[in-house]
Structure formats: C-alpha cells, structure tokens
C-alpha cells in the first residue's frame, strides 16, 4: 500500500438509494466502513439504468447523492455474457474516473449490469491497482439468475457444465455456454482476489475453475445500532411461538413449503398463541401458477398466517421485536443472506433449509434448526420441536455469535487490501530484479 492514505473505489451494480438489495447494502456498508477508518478514503461507484434518464454526453451522473459517490448509467448490456457492449463509454467515462481518482484498490461488489469489461478497463488503466471482486451468488456460473436451480422446476443444480446448462436452456447450444464460461472466467481472472461471504460459494467457484488461493471469506458487516430485545411474553410460561419470514415471495424462497408446513401442524401443537408472520412482497410479480398455489395455501392456513407486506431495511429492528424465530426455507442454495446476520444480531434463532450458505451460517442445534430442503413435513417436525421444547429457544439463542459490524468488516477488508498490495509490490520488484 502506498505511503499516502489508501484510496479505495467500491464499484457496485446498484446504489441502495435506488435498489435495496443485499449486495448493494453490503457494498455501501463497506464504503461507509472504510471511510470511518482514519487515513482511508473510499469512493462509491454504482450503476443505474432504465428507467433512470441519462445525460446525453456522459454515462456518469450524480442524482444528488453524497459527495464522493458516482453513478454510471449502463444499459447496453448482454445478460448472457455479463458483458457491456458500450466499451466506448467505459473508455471515455469510467477510465476518466479511474485516472482522476487514482485508486489503489478497486473493489467490485458485483458487476451485473456494468459488465465484466469494467474489470479489464481497471487493469488496463491502472496496472498496479489491486482489483478485488466480491461474489454474491452464482451468476458467473449459472445463467439461470445465478441460482443454480434447474429451469422448469425446483431441482437443485450441483455443478454447471455446457451440457448441463444446455439441458436447462435447450435453445442455447453447449458451444455458447462454453464460450460464456471461458469469457466470464477469463475476465474474472484479470482480478487479483475474490471475496465471498460464504465458504460454500468459494467451493462452487473453485470447482468451476477459479484458483482457491485467490479466495477469502469475509462476512458482510451490519449497520444496525441496537439489537431488538426478546419479544415480551404477555404471560409467564407463554411459549416462544412467533415465527417470522423476511424476504421476497418468490419460487426459490420456499414460502410455499413454509405455508404447507404451517397448515400441517396439529392444532394441539399450534395452539392459540402460535403465529407465522410474513414480511415481504412481490408475490404479484411471480408466475400465475405460483401465485395460485400460494393463495390456496394461505386459505388453508387461515388465521395461522399473517401477511405484513414488504418492508424497509430500517424497519427490521422493530419487526424483530414481534417474533421469536426466523425461518429461511429457501429451496435454492443462498449465499449469505443478510436476514441470517440480522436475525442473529437481534438474537433470534433460525430454522433453515439444510443446504448451501444457510447450512453453513446456521449450525443445527447450536443457533438454529435445519430441515431437509423442500420438505414441509420435516419443517413441521422442526417447528413442532420449537413449539414443544420449552428451553430450546434459550439454548439456541445462547449459541448465537454476534455477526460483525460494517466497521469490523471494513477493517478486515483493509487488511486484505494491504496484504495484497504488499504481495503485489513484492512480486513486481521480484520481476524487476529478474528482468
């Protein structure tokens, strides 16, 4: 790392002011966290696109954001290759920003919408700059929204290959998938290092062809002031019987599995006090058959379920106060969903599907319970266990480790940056010596 204050440019596929996804929040929290460290200077560079109107003469914009934040309008984007065809604007506008800021580190918190060419542009403009990429899902590996779930159903995909991907997308030849794989991996390899919030995701990328020695796992940091206290029980001996679901209602999130389980729990177990509270929306954007399925399940579940609609991240502490357990029934792998950290931050044990990032982050019997992915009957058993084992909630709550804050996360990243800069300087001088 140079003698001056390290300059970092965080590049994100979205700005949390416009798109409140987990990856955007993680990127922005890192930016904030770095700037809180003395002598570190971070800038935030995020993509915007349709329907935001752009300026005619430049892809850069500000949209009245905080000083030091850049927005970059990119729409000429090839989803299949994760490629930005407007390399002219990358050269004209992005390279200008790079040259003016002269960052020591450029950290990509996703590149969807921006295009992998941005990585190459950094390397071309700043050959000594440390380039880091944080992965948030499997988009580079899987063309099916990066979910690694087979198309036409909910079957999990364990390994991508041109032939397997062609089976999911028969209209796309294995030759195209082969090209996709090589193109994406070729441009990713231009970066120096990869960060993943979960080991599970690291393993998948390594199996796909990236070098394990260039990976590190760093959890995303949270920016929450105070944990929510445990729900106040109206009466003594009352059960910890409120279950919460946080997230969008999509096919991959397993809400149907959860609803089915809730309807199957016997009345004697469910009692009068139990409740499933669903915080999330977007059901209306899902395919009609899925919407029908959910509606029927809700009807069957009756008063056992309450819908609260979508929520803002800032509302989370208040919502947490009304629940005891958080359930994450996703039927896809997940990486490191922020709801896990949030639940743990607020001391809520979790019940989750036994796969992927969920199984990695939540330890069965220690800070939560696992059920077999997609199995509502197994979930019935776990919820029954939660409702009928009086001390379980306390035991699991005790097993929760507090997740890292965004400041701690930023410090971990700074250490990584410094470590990589040092390695790079050493290898450069070694090359210079042998040249």
């Amino acid at each position, binding site marked *: 790392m140079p003698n001056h204050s390290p300059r970092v440019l965080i590049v994100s596929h979205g700005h949390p002011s416009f798109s409140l996804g987990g990856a955007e929040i993680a990127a922005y929290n890192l930016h904030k966290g770095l700037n809180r460290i003395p002598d570190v200077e971070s800038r935030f560079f995020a993509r915007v696109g349709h329907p935001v109107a752009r300026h005619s003469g430049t892809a850069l914009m500000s949209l009245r954001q905080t000083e030091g934040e850049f927005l970059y309008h990119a729409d000429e984007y090839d989803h299949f290759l994760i490629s930005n065809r407007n390399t002219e604007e990358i*050269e004209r506008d992005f390279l200008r920003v790079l040259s003016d800021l002269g960052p020591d580190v450029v950290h990509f918190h996703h590149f969807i919408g921006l295009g992998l060419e941005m990585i190459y542009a950094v390397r071309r403009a700043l050959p000594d700059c440390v380039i880091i990429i944080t992965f948030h899902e499997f988009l580079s590996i899987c063309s099916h929204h990066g979910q690694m779930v087979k198309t036409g159903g909910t079957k999990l995909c364990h390994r991508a290959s*041109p032939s397997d991907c062609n089976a999911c997308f028969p209209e796309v*030849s294995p*030759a195209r998938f082969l*090209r996709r794989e*090589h193109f994406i991996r070729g441009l990713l390899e*231009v970066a120096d290092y990869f960060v993943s919030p979960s080991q599970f995701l690291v393993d998948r990328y390594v199996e796909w062809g990236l070098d394990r020695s260039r990976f590190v796992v760093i959890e995303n940091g949270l920016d929450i002031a105070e944990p929510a206290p445990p729900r106040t029980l109206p009466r003594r001996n009352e059960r910890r019987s409120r279950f919460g679901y946080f997230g969008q209602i999509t096919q991959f999130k397993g809400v149907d599995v959860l609803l089915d389980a809730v309807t199957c729990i016997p009345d004697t177990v469910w009692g009068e006090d139990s409740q499933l509270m669903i915080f999330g929306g977007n059901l209306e954007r899902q395919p009609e058959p899925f919407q029908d399925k959910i509606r029927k399940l809700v009807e069957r579940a009756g008063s056992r379920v309450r819908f609260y609609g979508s929520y803002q991240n800032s509302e989370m502490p208040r919502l947490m106060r009304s629940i005891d357990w958080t359930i994450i029934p996703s039927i896809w792998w997940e990486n490191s969903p922020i709801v896990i950290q949030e639940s743990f931050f607020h001391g809520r044990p979790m019940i989750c599907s036994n796969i992927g990032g969920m199984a990695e982050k939540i330890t069965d019997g220690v800070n939560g319970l696992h059920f077999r992915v997609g199995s509502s009957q197994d979930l019935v058993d776990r919820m029954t266990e939660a409702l009928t084992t009086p001390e379980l909630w306390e035991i699991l709550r005790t097993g929760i480790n507090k997740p890292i804050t965004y400041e701690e996360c930023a410090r971990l990243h700074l250490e990584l940056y410094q470590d990589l800069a040092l390695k790079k300087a050493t290898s450069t001088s070694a090359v210079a010596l042998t040249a």
Partner: protein
Amino acid sequence: MQRSNQVAQELPSLPLDGESVLVTSIGEDLALIAGVADAMMDKVDTLLNGDPSMSMKAETICWNRKNAPPDATIGFVAIVPIRLASKVRLRSVVVRRSGPPIRYTLIRPVVSLPNLIQIVCADAEEQSSYVVDRIIQTLINGKATQKRTDAALSVLTSASPTDGWIEVAGSIDTGQAFLQGWASELPSDTVRILAEEEGVLVGEFKSASVPRNDLGEQGKGFVGLLDTGKYAVHPGKLKKLFFRGRDGWRTLNVYDRCVVLSSTDVPAHIRSGLTQASASADTMRVLRRAGERFDGRDTVSDLKVPVRIGMDMVVEVTGGGMLVVGWMLDPEGHVDSLTLCTGASRQRIDNVWTRLPRKDVSTAFQHNSLFSGRLDPSRNDHGFLAFIPGPPSSAETPVYFELAVGETFAFYPLTPLRGMSRRSLERLISPLDPRTAAAAAAIERHIGPMMQAMASPAPSVAETRDLGFDETDTGKVLVIAAGVDVEEVSVTLSLLALDSEAKDVQIIVSAPVEAFDSIAPEAERLARFYGIKVRVIGAAGVQDACDAFEAAIHMTRAETLILLAAGVLPRQAGWISLLERAYRNRSGKALVSPTILYEDNSIRFAGTWLDIEAQKLVDRYIGYPRDVVHGSQSAEVIAGSLACCIVSREAIESAGGFSRSYLSTNEKARDLCLKMRLGGTPAVWLPDVEMISADNDVDMSALPMHRLAQKIDRWSFDRKWSLLINNMR
C-alpha cells in the same frame, strides 16, 4: 428445262470442241471443269498442265447428249483436285481414260460456280437432277471444308428454283424439327432433303399437306417433321431446304419473318395443324406422336393408368449434372422407362437410380380411387434419387421427365434449382436416412459423384478493414475463421486479448461476406478496447472454416499462420508459444496441432492416425476422457486439425489449398494434410497444449445429416486416398 434458253442467251454455252473446257475453282485445291468427250469414265487420272508429276484422281459426272456428234456424245463435269506450286497457273488438264488421253485447254476467264452449274444443267436437260446430285454428293463426300460445303450449297442453289416457303419452325425434344409452310412440288409423306444451316445436313422430311385458301393454285400448305439424325437442325439457323421434285431440285426458303417456336410450343402447333392434314397413315402417326411430345405440361397426372410422380428436389449442381430426388408410384409396372430430358440431352434414369423408402407416398395414395387395392402394403420403395452427370444447361432449356407408358409417352416438367451452395445442398439431401442400405448405394452411385462434380467457386475477398493491423515486420499472423455468429468471434477475440502472448499477434478475422457488416464493427470495438491489431475480411463463397482460412491465406504475406476456428478456445495462456516452439523445432516444416477437447473435457482431437490393421485413418481417442493422453509425447500423425494449428503459408499454397468437394471440414483437413505430407510437410500432434471447442450444432435432428455427410465425405476421401493409405505402414 424451262430456263435453258434464257440461260443460253446470257451465259457461254458448254464448249463442244472436245479440246476445251469451262472451269471454276472451289477454294485453293479443287476445280470443276465441264466439257464434252466421246467417252468418259466415273473416275479418271488427270495430269495438271500435262505434267506427269502432277497426276490427280478426278471424279467425273457424265450425261448423254442427245443428237450430238460422236466425239461429243458425252457431257461431263470433272471434279479435279489441284496441287500446284504457288504462282503456277493451271492452263490445261490431260484426262487419261480407257481410250487415248485428251488434253483440254481451260477457257479463260473462269466462270462462276452457279454459272457453270446452270450451263451444265442446260446441256444435261432432264439428266440435270442426276448431274447436280452427283456433283453435290462428290463435294460433300470429299474432304469436308467450308469451301466445299459452300460450293455444294451454291450448286444446289443454282440448280434449285424456289418451290415454297417455310413460315413456322421449331424443335421438339426428340431433336426433330417441325416445319410449316407451303410448297408447290413438295412430295407428300417422306422425302429426302438437304438442309442448309451453318453447313449441310442430310435428312428426311415427313410432311402432311394442309389446305391453304390463300394460295390459290400456287401450291399447298404443309406441316412436317424434319429428321436430320444425329446432328439436329436448329430451326433458328435454318436457311434453306432442298428436295428433289418431279423434274429436279427445288428449294424451300425460310421466310424472313418465319416464326421460330419454343420447343414446348411445338406440340400444340402440330396438334392444331393435324386437324385438317392429310397424308399416309404412317406419316400421320409420326406427326401425331410428335404432337404428343413435351409441351411444358404435366401429363403424368392425366394418365388413366395408376402411375403418378412427384419431385422433392431437382438441382443442377454447379459444375454440371442434375440431382433428382422424388418418388414414382407405379404399382402395376406400367412405366417402361423414365428418362430425364434436358433439352435434346436424354438420360434414362430408371436403370441407374437408387430407390428409397417412401411410406408417406403409399399412405397418401391408399385411398385414391386409381390406386386403391393396387398398392402392396409391404412395398414402399417409391422414392428415388439419381445424379446424372452432364454439362451445365441454360436456364431456358426445358427439363422434364419422359415416362414411356406402353405406346405413349407422358411428361413431367421439372424446375431445377441452379447455383445452390454446398450448405443448401446439405440441407436438401438431409432427409436421406444414413442408416438405410439405400443410403450407401445412393452415396456411391449418386451423391458421391455429385460432390466430386461440384465445382464450388473458391472464396474471394470482397471486403477488408484494417484495425491497427500491420504485418510489415511480422512473420506470423493468427487467422480466425469466423462464421456468421458475431458472439462467437467476439468472445474469441476477447479471450485472445486477455492472453498477453496472443495480444501482440496480428490477427486476421476471416468471415463470410454476409457477416462482414455485423462482425467488422464488433471487431473494431474490441480492437480499440483491448488494443489488439485486427484485419477483418469478408469473403464471398465462405461456407465453413476451411473456406475462411483459404480466403485469408491470400490476404497475408506472413510466412507462418496460426489457424484458429472461432469456436475453438484456449484452455491456458501461452498456447501460441508452445505451438510455435514445436513448429520451429521442425524448422517450420510441419503442421502442428494441439489436443482439442469437447466442452465436457472429452477428447475431440488428438491426432489422426493410421489404424494399420484396418488400413484406415482414425481420430484416436475421440470421445475419451482427456486424461487418456496425459503423459503422451508429441508425435507425427497422419493429419492434424485445421481448427487449431500452426503451419507455413507456403506449405498450404504449394499443396493447392483446400479441396472443396467435401461437406465437412474434417475430411477437408485430412485431405489437405495428406497433400502437404506428400509435399514434405507432415502433421504433428502436440498433446500438452489443450484447446476446447463444443459442437455448434447440437440439434438432434441434425445428427442424421452429420452422419450422412460423414459417409459422403468418407466415400469421396477413400476414392482419392485409399491407395495411398493402403500402402502406408
């Protein structure tokens, strides 16, 4: 003769002194002399200018002269070959015959041939036809020269007054000419004729007379068929027709506004002409048959017997020859022959075709009233395929099938596609199931020869764009063979740009011209963004990677070429230097190819080797897991892969480049490698370098076509190379 007195007043008469003769010359080497003698033979020896060293055999045509003195009882015309030294003038001819020789002085000035004929005819009177016949016969039978032909025609014209006019003419597909007009003395039915077009044709004219109110007593109409045998007359070029009338030769001239019918219009004309015609039964039968010839209509569908035909494809391949694919349903065997007619060219196909199963045809006709109950459910071989070699035909030439059904003919018009690309042809023959026995026969008899006959034009560069490309100081270029897929070439260029070694190589992207407009801007964008140096060329006639390479080879001066098909991707950086090192180690006298893997890491190419037991070439390990070649050493192989290799430009050029008579690039590559091997440039396989490439076309429906193409190519390849391969050890 009527005209003799008239002629006598204007022309000199035949010299009757027995010592002088009229003379006319025909070209440089023939003279006609006419005079009288007391006796003459058909063939005589002559001495030119009385010189015994210039003895010539002459043919004579004689006639008896009525009431003539004894020494002038025979009139004659002698056709005398002349072989004189230059500048020597022929003054006299000595004729040796059975009696004492006669010395004839040639009368000057010479007379013209028509005049000589008129003088002779006037003297020969009623024997004039015979005399003219013999003169013509002698002229035509002798050494054929234009002068002699012209002379024969001149003789005919001089001796044959106009008898009538030909007003309508046209050919029918049999090669006979239909003529319609009027004449005075034209004999009914059959008459021998001489036809003048560019030369003289001998033939027979069969005609029927038709009433013509417009002629009064001058003559009568005729419709007829002129048959000149092997050399068919061209109605548009016909000038005159000569025939023997009752008392001599007569001419039918061609009216200067004579209507020349297209061959498909002739049968209808004949049919209409015959409604009022009269002639012998035989002539009428012949004319009626002619009226039933092909007139552009499908008459098979009108047959009352259960025979139907349909076509899937009729293609005239570039370079000549016709491929016909279709079906003929003839459950009772009424069709005696099926003949493909292309203008006057005829080729029977039912004795050479390959029959193919067509159950769909049986199904379609099973409820047809003409066929129901007549179809054998176990027989579905109604399909057929045949390739008929032949010269290219013009687009105007009618092409059709002639079906001989008993005493009659039925016709089925065909519309050949011309100038089809190899790729289109591939698509069209794809319904042929490669697993059937018929396929093998079809390949051997028809498709294989067709592919050999196909002369696809060499690709030619139509567009070029240089994007920082400069090969001045470079000995090597990397040639990417692009298809029409822009993404494919973009990704390849991007990956090359990411490889520091490849980034500095000059790159030629060679694409079909139809893809140039989409590929060139993309290449320009990538060249600018990644800083690579690219020349994009768009070439016409590019149908596969080999064509693209061929086009590019002519657009570079670099000695060393790295050929890369756009779909082939590197698996590791540094592949170029590894290939180049192996190439340099062999002093550039090798084509070096890497291992190429499929997308699932199985082997796609690990050298083409000779299977000694089977005496055939095999792509070793194809489909095996990639680890099977780990630890292998680089080795000389029979053929390398053109999809990725390093090779000298000169080696490819001196081998004559790629053959274009294969469907797949595999056989083209093998073919080129074998040619280069014979030229001293062997192929080398470098196992350590791995590239990867998936099949572009994985549509299962395309698989039979791939198999078929493989079979066809194998046939073509084996015909060309099996001898060499059999002698390899």
